[in-house]
């Protein structure tokens, strides 16, 4: 199965078209086709992961053209790890979308499902491609779908999505300019090929420009402080299912691209040792963690609080990259997985609250613990995960990041990680207090059992269960997958 790397984006594209056609015939069929497409992705990705781990990296040359001339797709442990996260979250969010979307924006439903699959095609494409320009193409496919999805909300959503579009396009252009510099310096776009040629160019100004432009572009896409300003609005006004799909994946995949550039294109020898790019990323991330956490504390709107929290949490990934040592990077990669589950769960919970009670403001959450017991239990688990209480998954990313910080002797980063878990505790316990110990808010009934419909509740509970299970089995993930990914760092 050499075609394995390409199967993921291709099948999502295919099902996206099927979903459009089916949706034209019957609305329900459009949804069914989209869920079927997402459901095909999960076993493919997991099978890919097991195969890569047991038999090594799979490479596919598009059209039979050998690299560096043709486009290469590579499924290595890192790509397979990311693809598994994307497909699982994608499937859960799409299942959930049926009820949530029909409640919030029913008229947009026939368009949303195919576009969501397009987004998944773009995201999986980014992780499996071995070509710098092809990565740009997939980056734009995913970004354009994301703009469309985010704009589908009511009220200010189109405006917020437009801002994101402007900034995202600038970011894409930066990245593309960087790729251009690399192409005319090396004459190649294939990542492995470029990586071989770069060491001769370490002194080149063009390479420096390329590195800075690409990091800036991807930094903007991942909402790295202070380039995060597009994110809070975009996440706040979008339909819940959309945020539940985009928030756990989008910025993290941009983070993946940065890590890929660091590990496999420019190499630690350049981005860490020759030009201190990772150090700069680390400090920006440290600043972002603190600022965004404080901003999250200041929010009354639950979704906006979660959005700022996303900025802070994706900065954990950047901070791990900034540490640029094996433990730090393990923490960053593990956090991509953990945060996808935690934040996915939290945004889906937000949608569940909107579905049943119709409120966003935290002060009006009083008594939800009794009203929606299962949803709020899931919320509590995910919130404890975000704070980093063991044995939830969130604790372990913090654990590796702290160890990475100690190994690097970077006490400032260690202090930021530890302080951030206290700040996170402030804004989540404020909500937990409301949910479990405050008098009933108007509109919240005393009755038990008003959890959202099963189709929404099951994805929420699976994600919350995942937050616990991923914490307990984290050692397997780290030793089987992530240690292989960061192996090049341990050697150097």
């Amino acid at each position: 199965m050499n075609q394995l790397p390409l199967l993921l984006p291709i099948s999502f594209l295919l099902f996206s078209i099927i979903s459009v056609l089916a949706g034209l015939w019957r609305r329900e069929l459009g949804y069914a086709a989209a869920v079927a497409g997402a459901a095909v992705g999960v076993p493919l990705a997991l099978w890919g992961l097991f195969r890569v781990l047991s038999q090594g990296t799979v490479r596919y040359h598009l059209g039979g053209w050998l690299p560096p001339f043709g486009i290469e797709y590579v499924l290595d442990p890192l790509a397979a790890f990311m693809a598994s996260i994307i497909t699982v979250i994608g499937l859960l969010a799409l299942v959930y979308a049926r009820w949530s979307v029909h409640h919030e924006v029913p008229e947009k439903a026939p368009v949303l499902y195919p576009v969501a699959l397009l987004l998944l095609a773009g995201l999986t494409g980014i992780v499996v491609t071995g070509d710098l320009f092809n990565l740009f193409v997939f980056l734009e496919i995913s970004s354009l779908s994301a703009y469309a999805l985010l704009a589908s909300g009511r009220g200010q959503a189109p405006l917020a999505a437009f801002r994101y579009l402007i900034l995202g396009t600038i970011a894409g252009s930066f990245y593309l300019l960087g790729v251009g510099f690399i192409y005319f310096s090396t004459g190649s776009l294939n990542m492995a090929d470029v990586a071989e040629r770069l060491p001769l160019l370490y002194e080149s100004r063009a390479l420096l420009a390329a590195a800075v432009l690409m990091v800036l572009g991807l930094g903007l896409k991942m909402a790295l402080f202070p380039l995060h300003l597009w994110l809070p609005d975009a996440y706040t006004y979008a339909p819940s299912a959309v945020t539940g799909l985009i928030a756990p994946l989008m910025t993290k995949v941009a983070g993946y691209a940065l890590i890929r550039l660091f590990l496999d294109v420019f190499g630690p020898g350049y981005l860490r040792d020759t030009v201190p790019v990772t150090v700069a990323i680390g400090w920006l991330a440290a600043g972002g963690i603190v600022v965004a956490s404080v901003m999250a504390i200041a929010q009354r709107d639950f979704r906006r609080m979660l959005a700022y929290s996303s900025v802070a949490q994706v900065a954990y990934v950047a901070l791990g990259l900034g540490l640029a040592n094996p433990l730090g990077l393990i923490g960053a990669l593990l956090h991509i997985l953990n945060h996808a589950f935690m934040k996915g769960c939290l945004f889906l919970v937000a949608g569940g609250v909107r579905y049943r009670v119709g409120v966003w403001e935290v002060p009006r959450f009083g008594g939800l613990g009794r009203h929606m017991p299962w949803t709020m239990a899931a919320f509590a688990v995910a919130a404890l995960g975000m704070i980093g209480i063991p044995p939830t998954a969130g604790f372990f990313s913090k654990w590796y990041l702290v160890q990475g910080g100690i190994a690097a002797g970077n006490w400032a980063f260690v202090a930021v990680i530890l302080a951030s878990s206290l700040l996170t505790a402030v804004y989540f316990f404020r909500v937990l207090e409301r949910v479990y110990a405050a008098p009933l808010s108007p509109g919240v009934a005393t009755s038990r059992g008003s959890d959202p419909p099963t189709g929404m509740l099951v994805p929420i509970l699976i994600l919350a269960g995942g937050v616990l299970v991923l914490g307990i089995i984290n050692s397997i993930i780290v030793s089987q997958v992530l240690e292989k990914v960061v192996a090049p760092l341990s050697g150097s």
Partner: protein
Amino acid sequence: MDTLVSIGPLAAVAVSLLAAGLIVLSGGRPNLREGWTILAALAKFGITLSLLPRVLAGQTPQITLFEISPGIALALRADSLGMLFALSASFLWVLTSLYSIGYMRGLGEHKQTRYFASFAVCMSATIGIAFAANLLTLFLFYEVLTIATYPLVVHKETPEAMAAGRKYLAYLLTGGVVLLLAVAWSVAIGGSRDFAPGGFLSGAAGHRVLLALFLLFFLGFGVKGAVMPFHSWLPSAMVAPTPVSALLHAVAVVKAGVFGIARVVGFVFGPELARDIGAVPIVSVLAAATILLSSLLALRQDNLKLRLAYSTVGHLSYIVLGVLLLSPSAWSGGLFHIVTHGAMKITLFFVAGAIYVKAHVEKVSELNGLGRQMPITLGVFALASLGLAGLPPVAGFLSKWYLAQGTVETGEMVFLSLLLLSGLLNAAYLFPIAIRAFLLPSERFRRFDEAPWLILAPVVLAGALALLLGLAPNALFHFFTLVSRTVAGVMGAGGV
């Protein structure tokens, strides 16, 4: 010491976690729900007790579950120090369970399902801390304990309770992240070793690094152990229902803090290294100051539970000081005080709760003459007060005796006089309570009217335990043997 693979330590931890689930599921049927609590408490104590003969025979029942971080296993091990803590906590949980039912039903408290479920999780975490075989395992249970106690602190959901809950989290979560740093750092310099009597960090790094690490550990555990100036969450947490104050804020949670200090001093650093890096003078001053100041503060409290809370703060530092003096006798006194203070303080809190349920009195100044209405309850209170002040034949005398011997061994005469002074202060804030109740006249309390038996029985049993531990420290569960085994292991000598 032989290690012995046994599922016992795991079962002792898991049984109440399982019970927590069952409690939630049977939330609508109070009798069944409380049945699970009683069953779990008995099972937990039974399982822990079943490990005792093995431990006394010199074996260490141990189970390694799986890796929770590459190279670090989730491992549980019942050594003599762990047994000491686990036995005393699980035995007192049996009494507290009975008492909780009487107390919560007597007051018609709300959200009892949440209360009993959180309590069960707390006990799992406590036994997990006692049996943890390495630092990361201990830390996991330590954080779980912090979180699981929170719903109990805010149980009443009044603004006062919520404020106490925030203060509790602010202190304990901060302590938690400091501890996380300490654990991660010690793994970085010393590897992920299991606890070893006498420590394993010796030579792992320079003395200055180790001193910083020691202080971080002390800070992290010291918050839960209510060492001043990190103590102020504990008096605030007295807003919780009395059984919580009794078991968690006198036995399980706060003792988890001092237990952690003993683990780190004896089994991570080791007494010699702790002495060599110069950590002892810095932190033992804190413990000594805590003993003195908390007693003075206790004198000023009119609220009975607050008075007891400040007394707890002081007595926890007895244990900390005993551990820090690093002599065999001081260690024996300190460790034995974990058990004896637990028995005595839980008795006093049980009495405070019984008074609240029966007479709705919370203030010391309103207790005049209550002895006529509740003679048994207040008689037990008087007995436990004697013990806490360090008078024979109640248990507190023995631990204080060994502590005093420890100060003589190490030549710390300042600490000796401090201990004696603190004994007087203990008498000064505790004796007037019993004296008021029995000797002063009252209009209100004339008729004999004791608390219901579900409350009275635990009061009497806990008081009896406190007396028995003083008369025959080894009669029940060989507590003193466990103490001297631990001391012999840590100090390398024959103990006492």
